[in-house]
């Protein structure tokens, strides 16, 4: 469906050039969220955009090779777990849940700095979670599903694009 345009060289080349920049910009958005508009969520979405671009330009196969559906969901859980884990660390260190000031002794910094770093930590978690979650949703909704008949198990990804997979694999 969305994966028909495999042989569009221009699109693919542009994407290959663009994607690293998009990703760097996304990381900047995440990291610079303290000082400018942005943060984990926006950055994560831009990272998704990069992945989605692969998906759009090269088709589903290459995209899945970068990160498959299971990995996406697992990374998403890791992203949320980073957030919750920071909160829980604060709790175990003696403060309340998400009380970043408890990070200060660990990081040997002042309390406001610790809060700032705590915010950065959770933003990274959010970024990871949002990127992978959005990617997973896009794969599920826009991608070829091997599960047309709601069978109990997924068949391997089949369909017309299997023929196109070989040229892609050289990418």
């Amino acid at each position: 469906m969305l994966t028909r345009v495999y042989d569009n060289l221009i699109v693919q080349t542009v994407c290959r050039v663009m994607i690293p920049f998009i990703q760097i910009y996304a990381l900047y958005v995440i990291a610079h969220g303290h000082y400018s508009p942005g943060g984990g969520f926006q950055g994560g979405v831009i990272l998704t955009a990069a992945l989605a671009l692969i998906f759009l330009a090269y088709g589903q196969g290459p995209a899945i090779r970068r990160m498959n559906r299971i990995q996406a969901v697992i990374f998403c859980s890791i992203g949320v777990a980073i957030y919750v884990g920071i909160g829980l660390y604060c709790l175990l260190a003696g403060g309340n849940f998400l009380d970043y000031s408890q990070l200060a002794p660990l990081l040997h910094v002042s309390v406001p700095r610790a809060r700032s770093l705590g915010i950065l930590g959770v933003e990274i978690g959010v970024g990871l979670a949002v990127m992978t979650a959005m990617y997973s949703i896009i794969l599920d909704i826009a991608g070829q599903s091997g599960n047309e008949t709601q069978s109990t198990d997924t068949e391997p990804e089949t369909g017309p694009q299997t023929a196109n997979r070989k040229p892609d694999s050289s990418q």
Partner: protein
Amino acid sequence: MIWQLDFLILIFVIICAVAAINIRDLLSAVIILGAFSFFMCLLWTEMGAIDVAFTEASVATAISTLLFVGAIYKTTRRSKD
């Protein structure tokens, strides 16, 4: 915040919204929805909510439209109303 500009964008927003729900071709409707979101971003930037605008720009105009388009490709783009 200039209220005339604000007013103008709001009018555009409304036009987009009405168009989005009235166009019979779903793909066009979704694209117009993207335009709607874009005008919304503009409005919010103008109101000073840059973070919200940034998010709306990245989510609604990009991801949301992508999801809609993907779903429409998988189903049908015809609509009776």
